[in-house]
C-alpha cells in the first residue's frame, strides 16, 4: 500500500457494526451509487468489515420500521446477496419484525444458514415487549448479538416508529443476560446522556458510536459510562462522522489497547467465532 493510500483511520482492523446497503427494488434510483460510495469511503477509511442490514424495501412496499413479512424477506434476500458478492468485507444481520413471531424465527434460522451473524431489530415493537423474548432466546441460542434501533431518550412519540430508548432496551437485556445487545447509534438522535445513565450497569448492552451526531463530550461521556470494552465503532449512514469519531477517540484519552477494543476486538468478541477472519485489502468489481 502506498503512503497516499494509507487508511485515513490508521492501520489495524476496523469493523463497522452498523452499516446499511440498498438494492434495486428499494425505491431509490441511486441505490447502486450509494452502495459504491460506501465501499469507496470504507476503503479510504480502512474499514475491514461492514456489518450491515437492509430494513425491508426501505419503505417502498411497506414502512421501513414496520416492514411486512414479504418485505422483510425481500430485504434479507438483497442483503444476503450483497454479503455473498462481497464476502471479503461484508457481514450481515438478519432483519426481523417481531410482530410476526413465526416468520421472524424462521428468517433467523434460514438466514444464519445463509451466513447472517447477528439479528437486527428496528422499531416495530418496543424493546421491552414480551414479543421480543423468543427472538432474544433464539439469538442467544445461536450466539448472535442483537443490534437494536434506539432513540436516545424517548420523551414523546416520534412518527413512523415505535422507538425504544436505553431504558426499554435495558429491561430486555436484563431478561436475557447471556445475549449481547448493541444499542444503536448514540449519535443518531435524542439525548445520549439519558442512554448512558440507563445502561451503565447493564453489562450485556454495548454502545454503538454511529449516527450523524458529533457532539463534543458525547464520546468522553460514553467512555466514562461503560468503558472502552463496551463501545463499538460504527458509522450508520454518515461515514464522515464515523471517521471524525475515530479521530476524536485518539485524542480523548483511550490507550492503544482500548482503541483496538472499540475498533474491532469488542465486535470480534460478541459476534460468532470466526465471523471476522483476517483479510488482505479488498478488491472491488
Amino acid at each position: 500500500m502506498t503512503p497516499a493510500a494509507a487508511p485515513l483511520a490508521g492501520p489495524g482492523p476496523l469493523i463497522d457494526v452498523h452499516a446499511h446497503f440498498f438494492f434495486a427494488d428499494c425505491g431509490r434510483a441511486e441505490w447502486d451509487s450509494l452502495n459504491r460510495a460506501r465501499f469507496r469511503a470504507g476503503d479510504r477509511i480502512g474499514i475491514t468489515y461492514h456489518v450491515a442490514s437492509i430494513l425491508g424495501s426501505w419503505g417502498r412496499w411497506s414502512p421501513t420500521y414496520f416492514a411486512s413479512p414479504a418485505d422483510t424477506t425481500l430485504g434479507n434476500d438483497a442483503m444476503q446477496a450483497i454479503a455473498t458478492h462481497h464476502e471479503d468485507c461484508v457481514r450481515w444481520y438478519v432483519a426481523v419484525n417481531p410482530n410476526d413471531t413465526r416468520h421472524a424465527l424462521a428468517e433467523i434460522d434460514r438466514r444464519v444458514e445463509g451466513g447472517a451473524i447477528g439479528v437486527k431489530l428496528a422499531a416495530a415493537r418496543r424493546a421491552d415487549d414480551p414479543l421480543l423474548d423468543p427472538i432474544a432466546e433464539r439469538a442467544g441460542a445461536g450466539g448472535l448479538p442483537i443490534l437494536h434501533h434506539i432513540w436516545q431518550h424517548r420523551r414523546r412519540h416520534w412518527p413512523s416508529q415505535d422507538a425504544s430508548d436505553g431504558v426499554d432496551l435495558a429491561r430486555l437485556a436484563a431478561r436475557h443476560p447471556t445475549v449481547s445487545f448493541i444499542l444503536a447509534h448514540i449519535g443518531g438522535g435524542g439525548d445520549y446522556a439519558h442512554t448512558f445513565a440507563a445502561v451503565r450497569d447493564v453489562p450485556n448492552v454495548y454502545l454503538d458510536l454511529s449516527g450523524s451526531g458529533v457532539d463534543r463530550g458525547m464520546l468522553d461521556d460514553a467512555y466514562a459510562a461503560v468503558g472502552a470494552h463496551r463501545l463499538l465503532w460504527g458509522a450508520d449512514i454518515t461515514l464522515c462522522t464515523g471517521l471524525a469519531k475515530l479521530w476524536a477517540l485518539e485524542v480523548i484519552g483511550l490507550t492503544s489497547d482500548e482503541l483496538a477494543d472499540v475498533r474491532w476486538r469488542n465486535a470480534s468478541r460478541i459476534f460468532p467465532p470466526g465471523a471476522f477472519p483476517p483479510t488482505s485489502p479488498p478488491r472491488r468489481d
Partner: protein
Amino acid sequence: MRRAFSHRVRFRPPARRAVIDINACIGQYPYRHVPHPDPDVLVRVLAREGLSGAWVGHLPSAFHRDPSAGNDVLFAALEAHADRLRAVPCIRPDWPNWERAFASCVDRRVPAIRAYPPQWGLGADDASMRALAAACGAAGVALVLTARFEDLRQRHWMDQAGDLAAAAIRNVARGNTRTRIVVCAAGRGTIEETHWGLTPEERELVFWDISWIWGPPEDELAMLFRTIGAQRFVYGTAWPLRLTQTPRANLALLPDDVAGAALADPSAW
C-alpha cells in the same frame, strides 16, 4: 444519464495554505454541558487540526436578550490570543440604538458580526435584519448567521427557537450588493433553497460553512461542490459544540473528481 453540472471543480492537490475556522465560539451552551469551551483550549485545538486561526463568537450571547455584555466578555477573553482568534461580536438589530453598538464593534476591527434571528424571535422577513446586513456591507464586515446549534432530534424542551429558515437567509441576501453573508451549520436543503432562490449576483455574496453537510454514502458535500461550486463554501467546525474533526473528515472523503477543491478564503476578505 450523465448530469450536467454548472461548476466544474478544478483538480488541485490537498490545500496546504492557511485555513481559518469561521464557526467557533467560546462560552457555555445553556442546554447541556460543553467541555472546556475556553480560548486557550481553542488555540490548542486549532493547532492540532492544522488551522491557522478562527473567527470566534460568544455562545451564551445567542441566548441573551441583550448581547452587549457578552461582547465585552468576548473581547476581553480573546485579547491574549489576538494573533489566532478574531472576535466576532453579536449585534441585535431590533434593539434600541443598535447602530451605536455596531459602530463600536466595527471600530475594534472585527472581521464579521454575528446575528441570531430565530433566538430573538425575528421572522423570516424581518426588516431590521436587512438593515443590519446593509450596515455590515457599508462597514466592510461580513454577517454571520447560524442555522442551528443542535440536531433537531435532541433539543431541550425549552429550546423552541427552531432552525434558521432559508427564507430568512434569502431575506437578507436578496438585493444585497456588497455584504458577505456566511451561514453556519446549514444542511443541503437550506443551502439549495437559498442558493437557487437568489440571482447569480446575490449568490456570489453568500457562503456556507461545511460543518453540517453529509459526506458518503449520500455525498451531499460532493454534490454541492459540483452543482454550486466549492468557492461558495468556507471551513467551519462548530467548536465547542461539535467535533472539530468532522469537516476535516468530510473533505478527506470527497470523491476523486472534487478532492482537493479549494474553499473560499475568508482571511482574504
